[in-house]
């Protein structure tokens, strides 16, 4: 890097002026990703102390609640939807676009396939049924991103707001579908007709872990490949880095925005299919795991790398599975997880500030800062 270049750099970029890190770039980047997590755990521990809970015991309970006995299988299964959502977010965030309608896309796709599954079940081989359900879920969630995508691409309307709005609509529409056309006639509770537990997604032999985990792993590899080895990924990166430059090199910006939104929806739909066909077999009205905003910080910490996001996803899965047990033991609200993830985001910001003048690895927010509004380019 800078040690080899003999000519002094004119532009004082952080990478050029700072000395070569002693630990090497990988270690520096890893430190920069772990520091916010550690700070959040410490701050969360202080909150626990203030509530009269021993933080060491609490975090030990998170670990044992997420790993001991068969809990590790639940943790690994929880990783499947989280990884798929993270992959979906990478495609938009890398392009500097915010798809925050994750929960609506997830629940709507989930409700549609939960209503469709009992119709298909028994009429065809299970493998074909699962294939159709995964495709339908992906398409539904993908279609649900079109309105915010087009408003952003052609009118320049802020997609954060519109994707949140369509998310609320999607959540309520899912409830209407579950209570209306998809309601299980035999049940008093508003829920869809369940397909039998024995006929959910097949499991990996010797475990309870369903094959949705394998789908998620393949998706992570595919996302990594698409972002780092294809021209599509490069176009997204250019759009994210500088929308004006993207227009000047002839990238069809409006079309690319719509495509990246729809790919993002596709993966979020797959996440819903994996969770419902792997774990539940039906959907109950008002069910909302609200994974959306929890996954957002992980994608930044991993710097939009689909392979690097997996350890962070594992940590979040452990926290959500083990956190239920630990908060119950401590007698506190299980929304503690939300607080912890929010703190990770805040400390990410603080670490970014501290690292601005030191070379602590690549920035989290590269590519997500929009210097130019796309509206000017498209109209």
């Amino acid at each position, binding site marked *: 890097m800078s040690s080899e270049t003999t000519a002094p750099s004119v532009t004082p970029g952080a990478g050029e002026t700072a000395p070569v890190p002693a630990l090497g770039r990988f270690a520096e980047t890893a430190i920069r990703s772990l520091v916010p997590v550690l700070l959040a755990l410490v701050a969360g521990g202080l909150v626990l102390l203030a509530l009269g809970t021993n933080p060491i015991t609490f975090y030990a309970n998170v670990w044992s609640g997420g790993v001991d006995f068969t809990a590790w299988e639940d943790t690994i299964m929880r990783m499947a939807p989280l990884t798929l959502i993270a992959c979906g977010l990478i495609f938009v965030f890398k392009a500097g676009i915010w798809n925050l309608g994750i929960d609506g896309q997830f629940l709507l796709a989930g409700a549609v396939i939960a209503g469709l599954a009992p119709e298909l079940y028994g009429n065809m081989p299970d493998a074909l049924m699962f294939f159709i359900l995964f495709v339908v879920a992906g398409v539904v969630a993908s279609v649900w991103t079109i309105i915010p995508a087009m408003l952003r691409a052609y*009118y320049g309307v802020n997609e954060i707001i519109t994707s949140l709005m369509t998310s609320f609509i999607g959540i309520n529409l899912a409830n209407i579908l579950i209570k209306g056309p998809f309601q299980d006639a035999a049940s008093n509770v508003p829920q869809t007709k369940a397909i039998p537990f024995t006929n959910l997604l097949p499991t990996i032999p010797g475990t309870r872990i369903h094959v949705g985990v394998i789908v998620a792993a393949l998706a992570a590899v595919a996302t990594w490949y698409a972002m780092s080895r294809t021209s599509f990924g490069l176009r997204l990166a250019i759009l994210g880095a500088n929308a004006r430059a993207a227009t000047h090199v002839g990238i069809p910006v409006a079309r690319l925005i719509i495509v990246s939104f729809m790919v993002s929806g596709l993966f979020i739909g797959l996440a819903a299919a994996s969770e419902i066909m792997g774990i539940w077999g039906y959907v109950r009205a008002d069910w909302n795991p609200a994974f959306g905003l929890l996954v957002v910080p992980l994608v930044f910490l991993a710097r939009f790398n689909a392979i690097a996001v997996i350890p962070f996803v594992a940590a979040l899965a452990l926290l959500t599975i083990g956190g239920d047990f630990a908060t119950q033991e401590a007698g506190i609200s299980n929304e503690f997880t939300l607080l912890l993830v929010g703190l990770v*985001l805040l400390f990410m910001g603080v670490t970014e500030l501290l690292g601005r003048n030191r070379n602590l690895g690549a920035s989290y927010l590269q590519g997500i800062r929009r210097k130019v509004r796309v509206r000017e380019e498209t109209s």
Partner: protein
Amino acid sequence: MSDLLTTDVLTALIAGGILAGVPLLFASLGEMVAERAGVLNIGLEGYMLIGAYFGFLVAYHGGNTFLGFLGGAAAGAAVSLIMVALCVQMGLDQIVVGIAITLVAEGATALIFDANFAESRPTLGATGRIDIPGLSQLPVVGGADTSDGSIFSQPPIVYIGLIIVALTAWTLRRTHWGLNIRAAGDKPSALDAAGVSVVATRAWATIFCGAMAGLGGAYLSITAAGLFEDFITQGRGFIAIVLAMLARGKALWVLIGSFVFGISLSISDVLQIAGVDISTDLVFMLPFVTVIVVLILFGRRSYLPAALALPYVRGAR
């Protein structure tokens, strides 16, 4: 269907629109001012939640609703200081910090409420109303003798809100402060060249936004619900952000938009009075569907300041 136009139903519609609209009014008024100054507060939902909790807490322990409103506004302003420090001062990404504030506020309020009130779940009594002499006796818009009031029979905080709207509109249009705020959003370099601190202008606009959102949250818990519960704001912070954007920087449009949205949020209860049974899921969708349709029809005309969500760096191109 003839039941729909009785005085009872119309009065209930107006009362419900005000009850659900006032939290939106305060929050989106604050957001509108902050947006004009170039700060996008995605954490508005978080400010409202914190305001709702601390407003409730102060009103419950202090035994005075007015103290509760002040407490909510102060708490909202205090949370917005995170935004001021990290985004306005240090130039960090406003959207990331905004999401963080919302998540932390959701987790923190649920945690503290659970720790303090999980067993008791206390409620507050009805907030006292002022009847405007004469006008409050009118049918439909008067409401002196109904349980929820109407336009001329409301708690003082509602009238204070209307005064704040008028003052904000006047300040933005007619005063140097207003000019500074608009310049901070449209062309911060010009404001800087004129010798006014962009950071200070944006900081005050953000603190105003935090205080207003906190006040809106406090109204929600103290007056509208009379209690606090987890996630009591239910996405109203995000609706308020949309309202602020659709209002194109005009305080009067914030007022109209909040009332219209308030009606669509409360219409299911009103229709029940009229004997119409309709799915609550469908009704909750209505305001959001309305926004999307409005955006599709008028999206090109939604106004945002040029420097919105961009940190100001002196001399940067």
